[in-house]
């Protein structure tokens, strides 16, 4: 092995699987990615979240060297895929958007082609990876006849051919039926268990909550949170759900109670946020107001709640900049014109139930400050972002 190769290997072992600094991608007037920093550490199952058109796929494309950043750098195990090309992708596999194959070739032939382009004995692993994704019985069929789910699985198989140390998956569960999604989760969990670092872009928030230990949330091309998922959920503040004899009256009373925030009524009772010390006075006030309490249960904010808080209302200031920039990169929003953004609206709709509780959560981030728009700004270096030794 040459000296250079030895140095590369040594450096690759100690360098972070993904390290992006100040990544910018501009398409004419459209700012698709606006100074994104990412830190994926070895062993992470790292969730990369954001509404459609937020810049996730563009960022992943830059990470894989498919598109050139306008500014900034991205390194995979310390190597720059733009400058070093295929050499920077050693130990890296995955797919951006849906995996694509040659429809006129069989699944096996597709893998043989990709194995040939991988070298390093990848061809010998074809049977193994086909077995892992359970496509062996259909391997001799042309990919043109494959279902969406089968193509997704073939995409995983193609990635595994490379024996990756870093797996980049962009919406791997898209289009899968519930059983397929469950199996995909199992597979990702298993791969992570084998020591593969996974960078997972997904819209399936429960899936991310279940699988990922660290997340980055992007909105309008900017990172609005990066760090440990547990920290984010802690920062989300304590929530409570209340069932009463008169929910409407209970909401009215709760809104007038000091320390109680975001009190909203809904199908499943009243939800609100408060510190524990403020819950006692509220229950007394409800009793005095003639409202009987049927149930009072604490609720930790879900990733979905937090996601909408951070990405709706343009409310989140990126990296502790106080939320003033919640609308930063508004041009990125124009990027949604290109076809990505129509579903962003759907995401907004889905979050309407939590909308009342977002954006003004002063208690959400003690370090990040609260912007004038009420958005909770995550800190530039939140608890979870310090570099591991």
């Amino acid at each position, binding site marked *: 092995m040459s000296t250079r190769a030895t140095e590369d290997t040594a450096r690759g072992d100690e360098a972070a699987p993904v390290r992006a600094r100040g990544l910018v991608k501009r398409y004419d007037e459209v700012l698709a990615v606006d100074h994104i920093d990412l830190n994926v550490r070895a062993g992470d199952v790292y969730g990369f979240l954001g509404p459609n058109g937020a810049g996730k796929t563009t960022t992943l494309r830059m990470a894989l060297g498919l598109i050139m950043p306008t500014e900034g750098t991205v390194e995979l195990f310390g190597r720059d895929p733009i400058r070093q090309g295929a050499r920077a992708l050693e130990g890296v596999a995955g797919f951006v*958007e849906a995996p694509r194959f040659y429809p*006129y070739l069989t699944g096996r032939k597709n893998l043989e082609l990709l194995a040939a*382009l991988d070298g390093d004995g990848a061809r010998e692993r074809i049977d193994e990876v086909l077995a892992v994704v359970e496509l062996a019985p259909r391997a001799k069929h042309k990919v043109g006849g494959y279902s969406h789910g089968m193509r997704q699985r073939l995409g995983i198989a193609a990635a595994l051919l490379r024996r990756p140390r870093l797996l980049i998956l962009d919406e791997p569960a898209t289009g899968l039926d519930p059983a397929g999604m469950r199996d995909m989760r199992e597979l990702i969990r298993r791969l992570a268990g084998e020591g593969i670092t996974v960078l997972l872009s997904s819209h399936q928030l429960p899936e991310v909550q279940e699988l990922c230990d660290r997340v980055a949330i992007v909105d309008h091309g900017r990172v609005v949170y990066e760090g440990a998922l547990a920290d984010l959920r802690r920062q989300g503040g304590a929530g409570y759900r209340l069932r009463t004899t008169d929910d409407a009256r209970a909401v009215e009373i709760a809104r007038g109670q000091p320390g109680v925030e975001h009190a909203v009524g809904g199908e499943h009772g009243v939800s609100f946020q408060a510190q524990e010390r403020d819950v006692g006075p509220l229950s007394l006030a409800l009793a005095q107001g003639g409202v009987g309490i049927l149930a009072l249960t604490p609720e930790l904010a879900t990733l979905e709640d937090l996601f909408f808080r951070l990405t709706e209302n343009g409310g989140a200031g990126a990296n502790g900049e106080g939320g003033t920039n919640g609308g930063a990169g508004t041009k990125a929003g124009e990027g949604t014109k290109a076809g990505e953004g129509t579903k962003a609206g759907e995401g907004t709709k889905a979050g309407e139930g939590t909308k009342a509780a977002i954006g003004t959560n002063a208690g959400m981030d003690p370090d990040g400050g609260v912007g004038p728009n009420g958005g909770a700004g995550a800190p530039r270096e939140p608890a979870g972002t310090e570099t591991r030794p």
Partner: protein
Amino acid sequence: MSTIEASPTPTLVGARTARARRPSTLTAYRWELRKLRSQKRTYLGLVLAVALPVIFVIFQNVHQRHDHGADNIFAPQITQSGLATPVLMLLFLSVFMLPLIAALVAGDIVAAEDGNGTLKTILTRSVNRGQVFAAKALAAMTYAVIAVFLSAAVATAGGVASWGFNQIVTFSDTVVSAPKALLLVFAANACYLIPLLTVTCIGVLLSTATRNSAASVVGTVGFVILLYIVAQIPGLEGIRPYLVTEQFENWHGLLRTPTDWAPILHSLWVCALYAGPALFAAYLVFLRRDVAGG
């Protein structure tokens, strides 16, 4: 994937300590040819390259009159020697049909993969962009070479089967023996490849730059037509020797006695002036481009 837990547990994660051995450009080239072989549209051009000589031979057999005019010395020789057939076919096909056949693949070879999204699939493997580009350009050229020689072989076989393996008279009115004529026929086709591969390079450039198969194929053919039109414009006679389309007749020098190498050498450097920059520009575009299709 419902029984993932039950499946054996192979080691999926690498334990590499040394840098992996990367595949060669030759490997990428072989797979480009394999992909071409697997696509139906590849055969469209080859069918044309085979069918036209076959139709020509059949027509000449059925149609007993061979008064093709005196402007072409090989036309009256059709029934005298089967070796006149490939020469005539090269005369006819070289003008438009063979450039079209070459353009069908050259214009498609990068753009189709971009459109299908498979370009990003192969560019995230262990081959560099330069290797992928070289493999694609070589595959497009290989296809053009195969089309030319396939057409020549079919025309020769058909001609010889119909009218015998006999001597022919060349452009300089000299008689050439059948074996030598056969050699000259294939040498003429090889010379014709010089401008045809130039057209292929233009096709690859358009395919890389436009990312649109149809536009690239039409653009390549349009380029050839444009040069024919330019050649006809009064006052522009001075640039005619420097047009690629004028080089389509470079092989005529081989069918003269003594052999006239001047048009062949001229076509070499003229075509290099077109092909070199086109290929280099395509290479740069391919290296620098954003791959976001599919």
